[in-house]
């Protein structure tokens, strides 16, 4: 079974989704919960069976699909992707479990299960075409979720989301095909296997162009400034479940792809573009934090703060050293947990009041104390308070980039301060003071269905903040091998100097030492 556990993880939800068409609509949610719980258990078993001392790919499967063109069904998982896969199945599970009474709930559950297939598929795929297939397929369920269950502007938002990402991915596809062509030139055979591509050392000018082609695809997905404009619309219009999955998992596809494709395949280009991208990341961090401060809509605040934190992930990734990349992978998990939880929380209040305007609220802490507590914890986590999950990732990311540039890190560090400002001020406006709006006086506190989603998230946020080692160690192992590969492959002096060699740094500090 272990030989095919990844295929099982990928296709189990899809098959279940097809079977879901038969299930009666009153039982659709129960069916969805059952399927996603099984899927989550399998993904936990994957973690259990995962050998944390191995830095390379595990549970690999390889089936030839189009040998004439080098396309294989090649999947595998390492420390970088393992936890994102678990997170994807976790969020699908609690997402379906916390669904309220919605129209067409059966369609929604089926769509979510299909979406789960594509999410797991993207993070497990090791063949570029397979990756692309899942990457593109993930757009369709999300399009439907936003377009069918969203707010008044849902159609505009969903089309914008689809077209933006689709356009970027097509440019990336041309890059992939060119990469395959170069591989064909070098070896005489077609291959789309990422692991084979790793072995190819390219001249700098090819690296630069290919990096740019992939960058457009990934940057739109992340989304990086100035391609981020689709995301606030998508979040603003999407239903709660859509926002949660989008923020927690779908955005991670972009940052994950940077680590999986751009860095190991084009190390010199990554080193070359390090500062321009860092500049974009810092603009993204500060600018979107300021935009978030100006928002009146509480969901928009969370959306912009989510973009702002994605900037820290990018910064950590392009530190090009072990601390930075480990930090950014860990922050992907943390960001998923925290922003997923925040979108859940916004959904809770939206379900009660059908508005997301902060001016409508005030004094909620006295009416909904449990809600206010959880919101407070998650907000603190988002701000980057020590002992909560985001701090570990943010700290490591910034530490990594500190080795490259002090000034840039200082600037990025201000984001934490700006973040604290807008988060605390919105929290104050919504939760403290007198209850000014009569409609808020009788609001019920979070019910058990909502707690089902929120309590586990809170526990994880605290647990990983206090004791991140179980995740950090496997991530660190895999990241080390990526950085070693990059250093070996680098051909320009710039690349060699910016990407550290790990041989003389064996006694490097273990990252979790700083946390305690």
């Amino acid at each position, binding site marked *: 079974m272990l030989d095919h556990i990844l295929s099982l993880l990928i296709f189990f939800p899809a098959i279940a989704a097809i079977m879901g068409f038969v299930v009666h609509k009153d039982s659709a949610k129960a069916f969805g919960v059952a399927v996603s719980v099984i899927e989550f258990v399998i993904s936990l078993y994957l973690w259990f069976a995962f050998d944390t001392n191995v830095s390379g790919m595990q549970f690999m499967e390889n089936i030839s*699909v*189009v*040998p*004439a*063109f080098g396309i294989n069904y090649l999947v595998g998982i390492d420390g970088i992707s393992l936890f994102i896969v678990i997170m994807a199945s976790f969020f699908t599970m609690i997402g379906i479990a916390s669904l309220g009474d919605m129209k067409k709930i059966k369609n929604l559950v089926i769509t979510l299960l299909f979406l789960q297939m594509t999410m797991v598929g993207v993070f497990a795929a090791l063949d570029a*075409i397979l990756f*692309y*297939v899942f990457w*593109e*397929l993930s*757009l*369709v369920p999300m*399009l*439907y979720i936003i*377009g*069918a269950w969203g707010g008044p502007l*849902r*159609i505009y938002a*969903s*089309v914008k989301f*689809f*077209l933006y990402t*689709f*356009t970027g991915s*097509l*440019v990336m*596809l*041309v890059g992939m*095909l*060119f990469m*395959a*062509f170069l591989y*064909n030139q070098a070896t005489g055979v077609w291959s789309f296997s990422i692991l084979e591509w790793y072995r190819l050392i390219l001249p700098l000018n090819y690296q630069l162009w290919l990096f740019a082609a992939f960058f457009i695809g990934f940057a739109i997905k992340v989304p990086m400034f100035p391609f981020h404009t689709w995301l606030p619309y998508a979040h603003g219009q999407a239903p709660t479940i859509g926002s949660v999955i989008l923020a927690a998992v779908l955005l991670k596809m972009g940052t994950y792809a940077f680590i999986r494709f751009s860095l190991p395949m084009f190390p010199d280009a990554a080193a070359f573009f390090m500062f321009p991208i860092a500049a974009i990341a810092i603009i993204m961090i500060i600018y979107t934090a300021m935009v978030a401060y100006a928002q009146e809509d509480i969901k928009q605040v969370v959306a912009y703060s989510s973009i702002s934190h994605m900037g820290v992930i990018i910064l950590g990734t392009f530190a090009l050293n072990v601390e930075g990349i480990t930090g950014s992978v860990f922050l992907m998990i943390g960001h998923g947990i925290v922003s997923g939880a925040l979108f859940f929380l916004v959904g809770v209040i939206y379900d009660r009041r059908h508005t997301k305007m902060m001016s409508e609220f005030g004094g909620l802490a006295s009416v909904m104390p449990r809600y206010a507590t959880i919101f407070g914890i998650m907000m603190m986590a988002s701000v980057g308070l020590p002992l909560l999950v985001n701090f570990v990732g943010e700290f490591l990311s910034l530490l990594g980039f500190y080795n490259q540039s002090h000034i840039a890190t200082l600037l990025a560090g201000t984001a934490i301060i700006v973040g604290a400002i807008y988060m605390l001020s919105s929290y104050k406006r919504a939760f403290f003071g007198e209850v000014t709006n009569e409609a808020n006086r009788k609001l019920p506190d979070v019910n058990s269905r909502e707690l089902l989603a929120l309590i586990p998230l809170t526990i994880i946020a605290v647990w990983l903040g206090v004791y991140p080692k179980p995740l950090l160690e496997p991530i660190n192992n895999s990241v080390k091998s990526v950085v070693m590969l990059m250093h070996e492959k680098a051909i320009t002096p710039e690349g060699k100097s910016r990407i550290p060699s790990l041989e003389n740094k064996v006694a490097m500090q273990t990252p979790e030492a700083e946390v305690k």
Partner: protein
Amino acid sequence: MLSHVNISLESLNIATLVPMLIPIMGALFILVLDLFKKDQSKSMYVMLSLLFVMLDFGSLIDFSIDFSTNGTILGYFDMMLIDGLALLGQFIIVGASILFIPLALTSKRFHEFSYPEFFALFLFMISGFQFMVATDNLILIFIGLEMASLALYTLIALHNRSKSFEAAVKYFTMGALAAGFFAFGSMVLYALTGSVEIHQMAAVFNADEFANLPFILVGVVFLLAALGFKVSLVPFHTWAPDVYEGASASMAGYMSIVPKIAGFVVVMRMFEFLIHSGVVWLNVVLYVIVVVTMTAANIWALVQSDVKRMLAYSSISHAGFVMAAVLIGTTQANSALFLYWILFTFTNLGAFSMLWISRQKNLAAGQSSDHSYNKFAGLIKVAPISATIMALFMLSLAGLPPFALFWGKIYMISAAVSSGYIVLALIMALNSAIAAYYYLKLIIYMFMKEPEIDIDNKVYTMNSSVALRTIIGIAVIGTVFASVVLNSLIEFITAFVYNSGY
């Protein structure tokens, strides 16, 4: 006294005519049958035509086995040229016809299918297209082209709506102009080389190193214009949307596939040596036509309010996309053309068939045309299966993986990338993004909007019958599971194209 000409029957190799003669015999058979037994059910004619076309397909399989062992087969004074291109072209022509004929078995009665002449003309048309691809003799190409086109004009007009007559007349006038262009272009090339066979022209041009370049260009441009009409390249596309709108949806689907592949094969034969001749002008002309056809047709498709017209523009855009193969001119590109068109056959025939089963007698209030977008608003609520299938075809047309056309697209773009046409590859990729918008528009109408016009829910499956559902089922299977047979398809096509020297 004329001296005797001795030709042995073996050297004529009459067998090469068999694939074309089968449908001709079939057509004559149907006409004769009508003389003796009038007023037979259309189902009998459909099945008879289907039998003949399948027999035709069988003979092609026979030839392809012969081709893969013995190479190119010549016959009938070397006029017939059965090479890989000819066989692949005929496979698509005959295969698409097999899928098309059962669409006549609608549950509602239609005027045109009550005439046996419809089926006779249809078979004549098939053989015309087969002649077109199975020769490199310009005269025979011309005869095949006209034979097929004249039959096609009549088939469109038989649909018996005022718009159909308009469409047929429009197509006829444009076609007549194209025929004139073709004759003129061939005449110029004949005057230059003294031959009407493309490979001999190539030999003459290469021998004198394109000495009469201006004249060659005149001839080639006229031929390109003539073929451009047939495969609907911008700016020779103007007839296409109106004709598609006037023709029945099934006929429009057929027209978007079969005449075009015949045209592509001829273009490929004509331009293969010209592209590699080093005459920059031709490459520039072709490059511009390819890019403009892809892009402009896409932009026009964006603003259509009728699904059928949108599909008409989209198929123009697909033709431009595929035309890039001729410009690139490598074996991979030429194989990609056939791969793309085979996959396109399933998807596009499926999409048009979905329109065909929702054919109405009368328009509802608020509905501007037969297949306006708002007719499909909220379809997921009233006919979820139809909506899902239609969405599937739209996603495939948009090039979303893992559906059929995605594989054609990546193979074609890869061919462009591999031969250094990076900019062209990017334009092709970005055009897919533009196209995604109008395909999505239909999906949005079907899945995310509320029903807009007061329309009888039966309309959406009005024409549905077992035969139509079977064809749509085949199209769905071909669209969804294309990746399963992809490898053998690529190997088969590449072998055929490569062994024909393209």
